[in-house]
């Protein structure tokens, strides 16, 4: 057992390296990089500072100290820098219009500004170097700095992960509460109308888009009870009421979506177990139908169901994106969505890696739990 766990943990390493290479590689393919997006979003206050930086360098090259230089000297240097840029663009500095001059100044400042950002973020480096920088940082627990707002990705994740976990656990609880009893009922009443009804219900649950359900719920709540959902997220420990008002409904919607698959699985597992010999033995010794189901069938059937609940983590994370976006819950999925829109490389890589680690660890935990609970399983 221990050997198996160690082997699995060792196998995680290549998988994680693969994931990080894939994410970094995908981001290299992104056509517009973060810098273009940042600049297009109007974050150009840095532009003037960048121009000053160029002029300062020029002054230093001329042997003057930028801190103590006179205003005339500075203006002269500024003009020289702009004229050079004009010449590079093929415009005669002597006959250049003022608008052309300010244009040249902007180009200079913007190019320098973008280069500065690229250097800070490491975009000027090669693919492997960039990947190595990130990975070595991540191993030490530093996930980098977000490009937008310059916030630490660590802090951002620390704030958002509990939110996502709360939503995910509640949704899982809802889906189990719906799926397991109904799944057992469906199996026990196999091929009767209850079964047909529940099976159709399960397929219907798989087919309802969560964003449709959420839209309808919000609209009807507002129409019938004049109720509107809170717009500002509150931490559970600070303000449990607002927090639950905000998270409960999305969790139920998410849970309903998950319950379809789980119901079908529960049904299939219970049917499988009901065919086993020990069920026949239990019946033969005169146990009532009710006791056979609760004591023998359900207990044994739920084992694989528990493991599948673990396997649903990716579905859960994916599904929570839509609900986080609609209800304005500041979770991990929403963060990734916004980061992709902003081409916020460090954030995208970090979130993908964190989620991948969670998925891989949960899978491992599920396999091990399964083996511990079911002695028939031999790990190899």
């Amino acid at each position, binding site marked *: 057992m221990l050997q198996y766990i160690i082997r699995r943990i060792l*196998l995680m390493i*290549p*998988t994680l390296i*693969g*994931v990080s290479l*894939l*994410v970094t590689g*995908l*981001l290299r*393919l*992104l*056509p*517009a990089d973060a810098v273009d997006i940042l600049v297009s979003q109007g974050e150009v206050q840095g532009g003037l500072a960048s121009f000053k930086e160029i002029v300062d360098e020029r002054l230093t090259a001329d042997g003057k100290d930028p801190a103590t230089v006179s205003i005339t000297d500075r203006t002269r240097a500024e003009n020289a820098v702009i004229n050079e840029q004009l010449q590079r663009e093929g415009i005669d500095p002597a006959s250049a219009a003022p608008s052309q001059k300010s244009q040249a100044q902007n180009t200079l400042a913007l190019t320098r500004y973008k280069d500065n950002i690229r250097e800070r973020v490491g975009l000027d480096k090669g693919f492997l170097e960039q990947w190595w920088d990130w990975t070595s940082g991540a191993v030490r627990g530093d996930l980098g700095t977000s490009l937008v707002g310059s916030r630490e990705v660590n802090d951002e994740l620390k704030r958002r992960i509990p939110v996502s976990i709360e939503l995910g656990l509640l949704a899982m609880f809802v889906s189990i509460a719906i799926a397991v009893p109904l799944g057992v009922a469906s199996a026990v009443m196999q091929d009767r109308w209850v079964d047909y009804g529940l099976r*159709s219900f399960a*397929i*219907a649950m*798989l*087919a*309802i*888009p969560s*964003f*449709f359900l959420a*839209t*309808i719920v*919000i*609209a*009807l709540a*507002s*129409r019938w009870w004049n109720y509107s959902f809170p717009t500002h997220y509150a931490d559970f420990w600070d303000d449990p009421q607002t927090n639950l008002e905000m998270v409960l409904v999305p969790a139920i919607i998410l849970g309903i979506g998950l319950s379809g*698959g789980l119901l*079908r*699985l529960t*049904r*299939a*597992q219970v049917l*499988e177990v009901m065919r086993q010999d020990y069920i026949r033995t239990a019946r033969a010794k005169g146990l009532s139908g009710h006791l056979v189901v609760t004591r023998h069938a359900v207990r044994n059937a739920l084992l694989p169901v528990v493991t599948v609940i673990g396997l649903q983590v*990716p*579905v859960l*994370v*994916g*599904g929570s*994106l*839509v609900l986080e*976006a*609609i209800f304005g819950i500041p979770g991990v*999925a929403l963060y*990734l*969505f916004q980061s*992709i*829109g902003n*081409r916020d490389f460090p954030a*995208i890589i970090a*979130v*993908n890696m964190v*989620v*991948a680690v969670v*998925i*891989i660890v949960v899978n491992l935990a599920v396999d091990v739990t399964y083996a511990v609970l079911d002695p028939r399983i031999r790990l190899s």
Partner: protein
Amino acid sequence: MAAADTTSTLYGDFYLRRERPVLQRIVLGTADFARRKPLGAFGGLILLTVIFVGAFSPWLAGDPTRSDLSALLVGPGSDHLFGTDYNGRDIYARIVFGCQITALVGIGTVLLVTLLSLIVGVPSGYFAGRFDFFIQRLVDVWLSFPAIFLILTLVAVLQTSHGSGFMGLGRGPEFGPNPNDGEWFWYTFPRTTIVILALGLVLAGGASRVIRSAVFATRANPYVEAAEVLGASHTRIIMRHILPNIMPTVIVLATLQLGIAVLAEATISFLGVGITNFPTWGQMLSGRTRDLAENHLHLALFPGLAIFLAVFGFNMLGDALRDVLDPRLRGSR
């Protein structure tokens, strides 16, 4: 279905079995399927309807992009069957034209998923051993992402806000010409292709696992061993013995992926990422619809029901096909 494939005489099934002509077999088989699985047949009907409406939408509805500013947010009625949206566009027409995207993305994704999962799953399951181990670790990586993240990243990678984008697949113009005049396809084509590529790449990971295990199971059959003993090449064994025998699994898997693909397309359209220059069902639920739905429920109701009905039907069809063709898959999603 076996009973419908052949006719037997009064003397029983042992001899004088005559194969019916192909067309007759298809018709009888379908009729038999419809009798045994009415809900599955209903799903098949929905699939055919979506394809038909998509193919003939210009003849079934007016212009879905025309804004009638004198009829903003009109409820369902005789002028506009499903009402109009906040730009005065006819919701019925938009749903009818949305069928084109649903059908294209659904079928395109399913074809791509099937192809990719066969390419990955068949050799992995057939050659087994170290090769399989290596391939499966790659699939592990593939599956370690939540699908929606990978889809969104891929769509972002493949599209660009300016320039021609990856492999010449630009986003296409924001506003295409009138979809009724037949030019629409080439305006939507780049973005539709991008969405199909992203969905196909993402969904193929899980599907390849199913194919792999089906190949494993088939490979263990004595007839495969017999073919090996007779000196058949790998290609021949795969083409003649493995592929035909995993066909039921492939068909069922493809049908089940159809619903997933349509739902995923609707989701990314809802998020405002996928196809934005042509009416799609998911897109109709996004943007101002959510704020306006309180007083104008029809805005959200009809496109939502369209998605629900389509996905429900596709799932029903896949489910019924699985029961008939491949009971082994029962219980998996």
